[in-house]
C-alpha cells in the first residue's frame, strides 16, 4: 500500500472527512502560496494540475487555468521545480492528461513526480484498460494511480476499478466535466457502489461548489474534492488569505 492510501485511511479512520482542493500548477507566480494557505486552512491533501493543451475532461474554468499556466511556460518540470519551494506535509496528487506523461516518458514521469514529493496521480483519459503501463511505471515509486468511478459505470466494472485504484477512489458526482454543479448529483449512489466491494477511501468530486454541497456529499463519502469553484477564485486573482478563508469554510462545514 502506497503512502497516499495509508495517509488517507488513517485520517478517515480517525473520523475526519477529507478535504482535497485542486490547484492548477503554474497558473500564477505565487501558486504555491495558495497551496500552503489551503493546507493551513485544513486541506488534507492537494491536487496539482499539470496543464495540457486539450483538457477533454475539464470545463471552462480549469481549461482557462490550463491556458494561463501554459502561456506562462508551465511544464511538468517547472511545476516540480516550484514544488521545492512548497512547505506542506499533506499528500500531493498530480492531475494531468496521459499525453503529458507519455511524452515525458512513463517511468521518467513517475520518477520525477515521486522525487518531487508527489504521491498520487489522476490521469482522467487513461481508461482502466489502458492503465497497466502507467501503473507499472509507478511500481518502483510511491506514486499511487487514482481511478475515477462514474455514475455510468456498471456494477461489475466498479468492482474492477476499485480493485485497481490506488490511494482512493474518485467518485464522480455527475456525468459532466469539471465545474458543472447543477442538480443534486449522483455521488452518493457512486460511493455506495464502490462500498459494495471495497473500503478504500472514496471521495466525491465534480461540481462540489459550496460548503453545503461538500457537507452533504461527505455524509456518505469519505470526503470531497473541490476544483473549479476554487480555481475560479484564483482566476479572479484571489490572495493567499482569500484561499485560506475559502478552504476554512469548507473545512468547518465538513467538521460540523
Amino acid at each position, binding site marked *: 500500500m502506497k503512502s497516499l492510501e495509508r495517509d488517507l485511511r488513517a485520517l478517515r479512520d480517525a473520523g475526519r472527512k477529507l478535504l482535497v482542493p485542486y490547484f492548477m500548477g503554474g497558473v500564477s507566480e505565487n501558486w504555491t502560496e495558495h497551496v500552503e494557505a489551503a493546507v493551513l486552512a485544513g486541506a488534507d491533501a492537494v491536487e496539482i494540475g499539470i496543464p495540457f493543451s*486539450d483538457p*477533454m475532461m475539464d*470545463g471552462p474554468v480549469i481549461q482557462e487555468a490550463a491556458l494561463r499556466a501554459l502561456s506562462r511556460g508551465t511544464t511538468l518540470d517547472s511545476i516540480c521545480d516550484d514544488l521545492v519551494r512548497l512547505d506542506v506535509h499533506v499528500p500531493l496528487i498530480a492531475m494531468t492528461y*496521459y*499525453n503529458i506523461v507519455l511524452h515525458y516518458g512513463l517511468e521518467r514521469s513517475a520518477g520525477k513526480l515521486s522525487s518531487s514529493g508527489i504521491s498520487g496521480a489522476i490521469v482522467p483519459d487513461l481508461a482502466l484498460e489502458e492503465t497497466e503501463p502507467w501503473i507499472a511505471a509507478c511500481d518502483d515509486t510511491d506514486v499511487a494511480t487514482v481511478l475515477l468511478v462514474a455514475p455510468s459505470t456498471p456494477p461489475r466494472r466498479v468492482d474492477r476499478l476499485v480493485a485497481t485504484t490506488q490511494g482512493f477512489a474518485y467518485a464522480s458526482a*455527475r456525468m459532466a*466535466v469539471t465545474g*458543472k454543479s447543477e442538480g443534486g448529483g449522483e455521488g452518493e449512489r457512486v460511493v455506495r457502489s464502490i462500498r459494495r466491494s471495497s473500503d478504500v477511501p472514496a471521495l466525491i468530486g465534480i461540481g462540489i461548489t459550496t460548503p453545503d454541497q461538500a457537507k452533504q456529499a461527505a455524509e456518505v463519502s469519505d470526503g470531497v474534492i473541490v476544483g473549479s469553484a476554487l480555481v475560479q477564485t484564483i482566476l479572479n486573482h484571489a490572495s493567499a488569505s482569500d484561499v485560506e478563508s475559502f478552504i476554512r469554510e469548507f473545512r468547518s462545514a465538513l467538521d460540523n
Partner: protein
Amino acid sequence: MSTNNTYMNEPDDRGRFGEFGGRFVPEALMPACLELEAAFTEAWNDTTFVDEYHTVLREFAGRPTPVTPLTRLGEHLGLRIFAKREDLAHTGSHKINNVIGQTLLTKRMGKHRVIAETGAGQHGVATATAAARLGLECTVFMGEVDTERQILNVFRMELLGSRVVPVTTGSRTLKDAVNEAMREWVTCVSDTHYCIGSVMGPHPFPWMVREFQSIIGQEAARQLLEFGVDHPDVVIACVGGGSNAAGVFAGFANSPSRLVGIEAAGGSAVGSGSPGVLHGMRSLLMQDEFGQIEEAHSISAGLDYPGIGPEHAHLAQTGRAEYYAIGDEDVIPALQLLSEMEGIIPALETAHAVAWLAREAGHAIPSGSTVLLNLSGRGDKDVAQVQAILRGQS
C-alpha cells in the same frame, strides 16, 4: 462485411492497430464506447442492418458513385487516371457514408440524438442531413473561428434542423470542437450518440468509420474491373483524419497497389508528428517538446487537424501505405488544373491529392502508371475562398 484482408484487419480487442488506437477516454464515456463496440459488432454482422445501410446509401446518398476516367488530365500527365467520385455523393463528399451508418446505428441503439464536431462543416452538414432524414435531434460543435469562416455551412445545418454550437475554447477550431463534443457527450451519453467524422477517436470509432467508408474502395475495385483494371498501380487520397483514404485503401490493401495518403504540410501528423494520445486514441500527432498539441494550419479546413487516424499511423509504420505532404501554395493550381481539364472543381482537401499527382507524374509515379484518385469532395464550398485568394494574388 469485414474487409477481411491482411493489411487492414480488425483491430485487436483493445482496439489497437499495431501500437496505435486504443481507448483513452474518461471513465464516464467508457461504458458508451463499450456499448457502441458491441452494438456495431452485432449490427455489422446482421444482414438486416447491413442491407438497410446499403439501401440508404443507394436510395438516399446516390451510391454507387461513379468511377470517371480522367482522359484529358491523364494525357497531360502521361498517366492513366481514374477518379472515384465522392463529390457526387449527397451533401458533396464521402462524409455521408459514415454518418448514414452511424445514424442508423444510433436508432438501433435506441438513442434519439446525435452530436458531432465539424471543421469546414462538411461532416456537420452530413450529420445534420442524416439526422433530419431519421428524425434525430442533432447538435454540431464547430470552432468559433470556423463558424465565421464557413457561415453558409452553419446556415445549411440550421436549415436541416440542427443546432450549431460555436466553440470558444482553445484555438476555436476543429481540435477544440472535438474536445467540446467529447465534453458534451459525457453529459448526455445515455440518450445521445457522438457521431465522429473521421477514422479517429477511441475504439471502436476508427474501425467503425473505416468500415462505413470502405464502400468507397469496394465499389472502386469492382468498377475498375469494368475498365479492365485489375488493380491500379497507385491509389491516392487526401488525409485529414483519414476517413476517405481509409475507405478507398480498404478496397486495395491486399492488392499490389501502392497506397498513398496526402496530408496538408501544415497538418502533417505522419510527416512531422510523433506518437501521442489525443481525442481518445494513441496515434501520430503534431506536438511540441512537452507533449502539448500543436494547432494545424492548412488552406483547407478539412485537413486542419494535428492528428491522423490510428490505422494510418499503423499503415505508415508498417510501410503498407506512404504519406506525403503538400504545401498550401500548390493547392489552388491543382484545383484549377482539374477544373479546366476535366470539368470537376474539387474540394481544397481533394486538391492536395491532385497536386501530388501532378507533381509526381513521371517521377514518384512512373509514366504510364494507372492511378486511382479518390475525389473526396466537391469544391463548391471553397469557391469563395479560392476567389479571395486569387484576388489577393493578382
